[in-house]
């Protein structure tokens, strides 16, 4: 353990000094896996936008109440959107074989996700504008659709990291001659015609998907309770929290138990051979005890945040459950995503051909690219800093009904 911690401190310095080598490449692979996992974790937290939109009708109760909720999430929707796009871009840059295999293979799954986000992007701006001949209800429906399908399908996509997907990778396909052109040349292919929809037939994919839906709703309610200065809404929020949090906890616990007991996809770093290992993810958490600690802290914070606002949300001047639950969500998801990839685990397993499974080793970019992107990633703290600064500046004064009625730019 002391050696690992030393390597953790020394290797970034070595990279800064331009030193290469196997240790350096391995560190960079782990580092970029961490960055992508962090982006994924932040994305799940930011799905509070989707969650709040999916309950806007019932939580808001009236048209004005719904409008307040849309204006609350409307100040943040672009952050969620950008995080999704950057998550995809970072995955492309660091693990291009995953990008080409998953997006090129699970075509329908990703297209559905993208469709709902396309609809969301315009729905805020267009819904109440003069000239919207589709009517506000059309775009409100789009926000609700994105609010449910977005988290469901993204959660389902994450579940495939543990459950596996139906694809085959064969790089020599590119060398098909003579006369080879088109689909016959493709390196990564989905092994059936469903192109990703078959993942939804796996009940555990749906369990995690719906867990994310209810988590997003929970976080959405917590966010609205914090962001909107309206006693009625906060009181309703406290009650709605139970309806969202209980199914989330049940589904999440069910999936977590399943995950810890299931066989996982391990690989031998020396040979690259992939094999099934009983209780692989449980072993990962025990071998990487710090991830287990992070996971437990995350779960506690999520439950604490939810409990705080259920019990005291309507009584406090500014409910703060969102921050506890939000930080907890980031930690929990981060730990789970790292558990799917670190410790010699195939993070994108193939159920069609085990040896086609993707690992950090066989799917990552070159050392040069990962090192270049390492330097770029040093900007991330600055990006986070100005996001936090602007967030605090904008949310220092909570949203009120009067602001929505009289504001210069409202949705």
């Amino acid at each position, binding site marked *: 353990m002391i050696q690992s911690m030393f390597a953790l401190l020394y290797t970034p310095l070595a990279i800064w000094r331009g030193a290469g080598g196997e240790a350096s490449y391995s560190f960079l692979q782990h580092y970029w896996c961490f960055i992508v996992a962090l982006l994924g974790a932040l994305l799940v937290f930011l799905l509070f936008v989707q969650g709040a939109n999916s309950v806007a009708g019932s939580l808001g109760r009236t048209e004005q109440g719904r409008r307040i909720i849309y204006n609350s999430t409307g100040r943040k929707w672009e952050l969620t959107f950008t995080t999704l796009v950057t998550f995809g871009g970072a995955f492309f840059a660091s693990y*291009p074989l995953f990008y*080409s295999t998953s997006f090129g293979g699970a075509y329908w799954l990703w297209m559905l996700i993208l469709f709902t986000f396309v609809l969301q992007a315009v729905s805020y701006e267009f819904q109440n504008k003069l000239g919207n001949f589709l009517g506000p209800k059309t775009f409100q429906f789009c926000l609700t659709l994105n609010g449910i399908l977005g988290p469901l399908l993204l959660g389902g996509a994450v579940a495939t990291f543990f459950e596996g997907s139906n694809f085959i990778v064969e790089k020599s396909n590119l060398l098909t001659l003579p006369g080879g052109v088109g689909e016959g040349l493709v390196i990564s292919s989905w092994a059936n015609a469903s192109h990703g929809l078959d993942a939804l037939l796996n009940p555990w994919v749906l369990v995690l998907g719906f867990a994310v839906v209810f988590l997003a709703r929970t976080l959405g309610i917590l966010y609205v309770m914090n962001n909107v200065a309206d006693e009625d809404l906060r009181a309703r929020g406290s009650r709605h929290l139970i309806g969202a949090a209980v199914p989330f906890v049940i589904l999440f616990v069910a999936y977590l138990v399943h995950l810890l007991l299931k066989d996982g996809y391990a690989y031998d770093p020396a040979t690259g051979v992939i094999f099934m290992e009983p209780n692989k993810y449980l072993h990962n958490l025990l071998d990487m005890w710090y991830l287990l600690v992070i996971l437990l802290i995350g779960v506690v914070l999520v439950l604490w945040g939810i409990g705080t606002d259920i019990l005291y949300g309507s009584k406090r001047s500014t409910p703060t459950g969102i921050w506890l639950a939000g930080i907890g969500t980031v930690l929990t998801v981060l730990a789970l995503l790292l558990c799917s990839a670190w410790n010699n685990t195939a993070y994108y397993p193939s159920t069609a051909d085990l040896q086609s499974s993707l690992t950090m080793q066989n799917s990552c970019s070159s050392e040069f*690219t990962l090192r270049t992107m390492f330097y770029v990633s040093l900007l991330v703290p600055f*990006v986070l800093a100005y996001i936090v600064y602007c967030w605090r500046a904008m949310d220092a004064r909570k949203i009120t009904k009067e602001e929505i009625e009289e504001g210069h730019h409202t949705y």
Partner: protein
Amino acid sequence: MITVASLITLLQTALPVEGEQGGGLFTAIDWARAQFALTAIYHWLFVPLTLGLGLIMAIMETKYYRTGDLFWRRTAQFWQRLFGINFAMGVATGIILEFEFGTNWSNYSWFVGDIFGAPLAIEGIVAFFMESTFVAVMYFGWEKVSRGFHLASTWLTWLGATISAWWILVANAWMQHPVGCDFNPDTMRNEMTSFLDVALSPFAVGKFCHTVTSAWIVGAVFCVAVCSWYLLKKRETKLALESIKIGAATGLLATILAAATGHKSAQDVAAMQPMKLAAMEALYDGGTGQGLKLIEGIEVPYALSFMATNDFNGFVPGINDLLRGYTREDGTVEPSAKEKMERGRQAIADLAAYRKAKAEGADEETLSSQLSSLNSNLPYFGYGFIKDEAELVPPVAVNFWAFRVMVGFGSLFVLFFVVLLAAIYRFPKALWKDHDIASLPAWHYWLAILLLPCAYITSESGWLVAEFGRQPWTIQDMLPVGASISNIGSSAVATTFWLFLVLFTVLLAVEINIMLKQIKKGSLTPDPSPKGEGSSFQ
């Protein structure tokens, strides 16, 4: 306009091309190309206005910051409302493109992702977060943050959009002229060897400057068109007169810069993509002292040679020269298409043999010999996937006319903004003494309004030249479209194509209607008294 562009794309991909997979209409490759073209064309309807109008509204808010005059605050807020309507569509159409490299072009994503993925990731980290964070402050922060912070947010929103343009154009420029990379036979992909070569490629710099300045033209023409409408209707007169000055000045600067950078871009194309230049000029048989065609039958003598080579008698190869092969002025030989295709097939065979030998544990000498043969033919690797040399010729008609539309209207815009500024500032006085910009005959304003769709057509034409001209390559000389796609059946891609077409067209119609209504609504309150507090920010 959109329908015409989409139809052109469809026709180009639908026409049977000898040697293409299936030899008939609408293969999976065709649909993948059509879908990317469709989504890119739609996205490019909104990005130029974000870049151009973003600059104009930031200038206006700067005037408010410096003078404290509430008029400028109201004016900046008016243009920001229009900006916001357009921005939403830009975001909506952009997300598809980010992921389409993976969904429809998975081979491409693996083959060059080591280089191509980095600019996209940097775009997200550096640019998109900047845009998305500060645009929220810009829209909603008027009463929540200080004037200085708000102004900074407006400029940072525009800067974020501009930086985003930089990185995506770095990526696109790399497709046109791949640099800073080597092919790794063990990993079967190209790998980055120099980030600076990629990020600061002269091709990328030229492309960025030309694309962004052309976007400023769209923003300027939009601003002038809206102001003209107000002047025609005798409404919002002060807002129109003050805004048109900024729009016109921005437009003139932009057109001059776009012309200069366009010339640079054309020279880059002449050097790196001679087939694209030949298609742009419908030049089949090249030679020295080539004239520049205005239209078929009318040309400016020696102009093409000068434009391409800085030498009136410089040699410019035509389509047939590039297919047959020719000897350059310096004595080096450009191989024929047939030879390139043979060497490309040899490179692919060498790579297959190398991988097989390595898997079987062959000795170093054998592997080294195979690598040597591979490396000697590697520059033509992409040609190995080409079955017929006719595939190497881009759509000539599209390139020829799109280029002329772009340059023709671009030249017109220079004249337009010169005349407009002269009219605004009444220079020379003798010419304008009986005319006032606020009370010209109606046809003047209608002309300015009608130039708006022309600006969009011009802007899209530039991209038609850039992207049709590089066909059949996704990466010039390295990977053709036929070897770049995902293993998705044509029916699936056709379905998503039509879904996107319907969705984007409906949303575009809604967006235009909202924009028109917002313009009709105006800036909401009467002009405040000069420098007074006047009414509230509304």
